[in-house]
């Protein structure tokens, strides 16, 4: 027989737990200290906000970076044999830079990149969300670049030829004709990248950023009991991912119905 439950509780439990059925007391107390005591539920909400903000900012940075990198790579691959002069030199230089970027970013863990970013490069910055968003954005950009490059390559070469034959230059044809089609083609994949990114930001706690994971971790430590806090973190991710997966599915169906 364990001693009376209330004696093993370091916190004072409210009456609504003590007055409830006895078999529910332990469970109720665990719930109380994980979410209610000290307004701990607010920490999960704060974590949720940070996780969403971080993911959104990182995706924006990632897409911007990915478009630029993929354009450099595609332009170089398709045109370098016919180019010459300083144009070729600059494009070649940026292409080499892009390749180094892709290799380094995809060849090292996101956590290590994040820690280097926060503890070394931006050691003087206190703005954890911005630094982490930048770090995840740079990380995501490498993957987005390859997604968009695949999208551009999937567009029939006849589209480029049709644009050029009307008198559009390479850049204008890309802008008006190729990229809009490529974007439409990769939109579901990009949306999936957002979902992947959402879960990848779970390591933000390494630099002390209170995201969904870190919130669960801290509260678990405070309660000396990780069960409810970590389950809560997991549940938040699960609901988010299920919600966004549902949206991506809707998006895919809509795109398919407007297919040629």
């Amino acid at each position, binding site marked *: 027989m364990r001693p009376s439950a209330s004696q093993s509780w370091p916190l004072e439990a409210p009456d609504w737990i003590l007055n409830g059925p006895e078999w529910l007391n332990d469970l109720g107390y665990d719930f109380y200290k994980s979410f209610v005591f000290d307004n701990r539920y607010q920490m999960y909400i704060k974590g949720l906000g940070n996780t969403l903000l971080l993911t959104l900012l990182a995706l924006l940075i990632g897409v911007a970076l990915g478009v630029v990198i993929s354009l450099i790579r595609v332009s170089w691959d398709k045109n370098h044999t016919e180019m010459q002069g300083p144009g070729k030199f600059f494009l070649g230089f940026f292409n080499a830079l892009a390749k180094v970027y892709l290799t380094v970013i995809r060849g090292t863990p996101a956590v290590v990149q994040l820690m280097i970013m926060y503890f070394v490069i931006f050691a003087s910055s206190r703005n954890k969300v911005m630094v982490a968003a930048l770090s995840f954005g740079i990380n995501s950009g490498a993957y987005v670049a390859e997604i968009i490059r695949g999208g551009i390559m999937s567009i029939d070469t006849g589209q480029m030829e*049709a644009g050029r034959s009307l008198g559009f230059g390479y850049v204008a044809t890309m802008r008006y004709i190729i990229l809009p089609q490529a974007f439409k083609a990769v939109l579901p994949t990009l949306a999936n990248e957002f979902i992947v990114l959402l879960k990848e930001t779970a390591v933000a706690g390494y630099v002390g950023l209170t995201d969904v994971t870190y919130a669960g971790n801290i509260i678990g430590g405070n309660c000396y009991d990780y069960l409810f806090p970590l389950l809560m973190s997991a549940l938040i991710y699960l609901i988010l991912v299920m919600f966004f997966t549902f949206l991506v599915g809707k998006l895919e169906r809509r795109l398919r119905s407007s297919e040629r």
Partner: protein
Amino acid sequence: MSADIIQAMDLQKHFDGGDIKALNGVNASVKKGEVVVVIGPSGSGKSTFLRCLNLLEVPTGGKVLFEGVDITDKKADINLHRQKMGMVFQHFNLFPHMTILRNMTLAPMKLLKKSQADAEAKAKALLERVGLSDRANAYPSQLSGGQKQRIAIVRALCMDPEVMLFDEPTSALDPEMVGEVLEVMKELAKEGMTMVVVTHEMGFAREMADRVIFMAEGKIVEEGTPEEIFMAPKQPRTRDFLAKVL
């Protein structure tokens, strides 16, 4: 018929470091208002020749003069010259993410700086001519092959080109749709448009061509009026080909 609008001088196109010679010294000229039809077996280099005329294919040797300007020169602004050389492709290459009207007004608005009203007025007039006014707001996916190709032709015409280049415009069409496209091309020829047409439609060549060029193995084997080529070909290679296709 006046001065040469296009002149191809000793065009060479080698692929794979010179192993494959798609074009091997092609000399040809096109006069203003002339309809030139290029025929030949597949792999003879006729499409490559056509694509070299607006530099979609960059020749590895030789020159192309358009309105007297060497457009193969690195200093020439090829985009500017291409505005005056309309091109129609075997696979239409309409822009699938835009309506028919937008397909037709994009280049005039962006490149010729026409107002939307002007560009649309011209596009609608052209649509009227090819009998597709009711499809202005449709997307390419909603059209048949023959309709797509007619749109592709008028899209090129929206730029008021000096020359129209046709790269096997009916080869990808179902047989019953070939006629409607050829009809549009015939009308264009009658209006005096300068045309270079690569095709397998011998009937069109006979009826509409001012001059027929027969190509084989990357060279021009024979050229002349349709009567000369179809009735009395001089080269055995030409006779051989015509015996197979007629």
